[in-house]
């Protein structure tokens, strides 16, 4: 499997990443090399082998869904992290009318 230009563009879009032409060219080779490297796994017979999703053996760790008040000073610290704001509201670029979005 090769990372050709079309695949790079598709994955960049899915990844929400901008790269310039020079970086895209370098990535095309590097990502193809990485794919070739990991493709050695295709030689491993995994017939009948269950996948490992996690290693703890724990399942369904529950807790009460409690409403806990967020102290005002913590609220202020969180709001202070907003890159842009109006008062205590988080400001973002407009969500609708974006023509560059994936279908």
């Amino acid at each position, binding site marked *: 499997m090769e990372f050709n230009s079309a695949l790079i563009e598709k994955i960049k879009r899915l990844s929400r990443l901008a790269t310039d032409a020079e970086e895209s060219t370098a990535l095309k080779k590097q990502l193809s090399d990485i794919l070739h490297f990991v493709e050695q796994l295709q030689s491993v017979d995994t017939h009948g082998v269950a996948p490992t999703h*996690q290693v703890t053996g724990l399942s369904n760790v529950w807790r009460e869904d409690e409403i806990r008040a967020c102290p005002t000073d913590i609220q202020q610290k969180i709001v202070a992290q907003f890159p842009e704001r109006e008062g205590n509201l988080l400001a973002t670029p407009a969500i609708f009318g974006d023509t560059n979005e994936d279908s």
Partner: protein
Amino acid sequence: MIEQLPLTIEETRESLRAKKFSCRELVDAYLDRIEKIDSTLNSFITIEKENARDHADACDEHIARAGYPEDKPLFGIPFAVKDAICTEGIRSTASAKILDNYIPPFDATVIAKLKSAGGIILGKNNCDAFGHGASNENSQYGPVLNPWNTKMVAGGSSGGSAAAVSANFCAFSIAEDTGGSIRQPAAFCGLAGLRPSYGRNSRYGIMPMASSLDTVGPLARTVQDVALLMEVMAGKDKLDGTTVEDEVPAYSTHISKLSKKLRVGLPQEYFTGELEEEIKNIIEKAIEDIKNLGVQVSEVSLPHTKFAVPVYYIIVPAEDSSNLGRMDGIRYGVRAQTDNLFDTYAESRAQGFPTEVKRRIMIGTFSLSSGYYDAYYAHAQKVRTLIRQDFDKVFETVDLLLTPTTPAPAFPLGSKTQDPIAMYLADVFVSPAALAGLPALSVSAGFTKVGLPVGLQIIGPRLNELEVLQLGYAYEQINKWFLKQPSL
């Protein structure tokens, strides 16, 4: 004035107890040393001078009033934290520009525990951005140099933590290990570093990389210190559903009680191929030392070892790409100014991530995407099962495994940056235990002819940190390599 900085936590405690120096004098001595030397090594991104001094003064007042508090095992001990771990009120960048201005409103659970044990935070250590790397050259705050030879890398991803402890800028550093990020820099810098079993220490507040592998653990000068720190940090946390209920042993109390019947295996796959001759000789000498402790040593086999790095580089980028989705410049961090939402995401991420982070996100996005999931991600998860089964099988016949931590000592700066796969292979001996969720310790095993440190790795069955630490401690007492200091 402190003429000689202490080397271990116990030594520091004794000195504070005996009033050889005050907490403030200790903090000032570390800060002076950082100021004088760290411009060469670049191990810190943020230094908390004022807060550390205030905290030290408060500790001194407490000691003057009520004596040294014996119930606080880290009282007045200055330490550092990898920058990918959240610290309340202290900038936490993960070494990526997208978080250049991020100040967490909370502490990671392990940090809260270390603070309540009396520890003083000196600052935040440089690392590979989001923990991606084996050399600390993927930091957007510059690489970290190795205190033993500044032409060499300090290792990664926790290179700043390792360099800082090795250079005696702090008593210990808290870092995270997803595929070797504590053990490999510990080996490169001549330290003790433990990757705990997955689920032993809370991951709450650790910036997530690969959620099914991430662990948080200590880098310190001695195994004894590592044991003490694990005692403070380990245990169930209701804020991390993957932590286990299993009782946390009193590691530091039991550390010297090495079982006389211990059986240790040498996985043959770790002693061939890429292992450099000089490292092999040093590790074989360490194995002889361990045999002389009365431990039974035998050869064993972990046949799927060679597949660990390729499995790692499918599973980790996949989980990475998902976890890093939150780094979008919207709610916190640095936002690029563009005129539409898509470009805001794409430009914030383009500017805020170094190239390795982009590679991982793209490989991960690819392997999770429609049409490729089964052939890459799902298949890698099955090979991961085979790697785990290899370990399960050998632990039926031996109690612990001994391996070199790395196939070669610290490599020259810039020697692998253009070749991602060569960089990935630096983790060839540390990624298998990570995929299996096992505890693994790197302990200093001596030095090469040119004076670069070499690490011995001890791997144990899940949740058996105690025997791993006991063997590490028994070995450490033979040569006491930790007494040797880099000349800076």
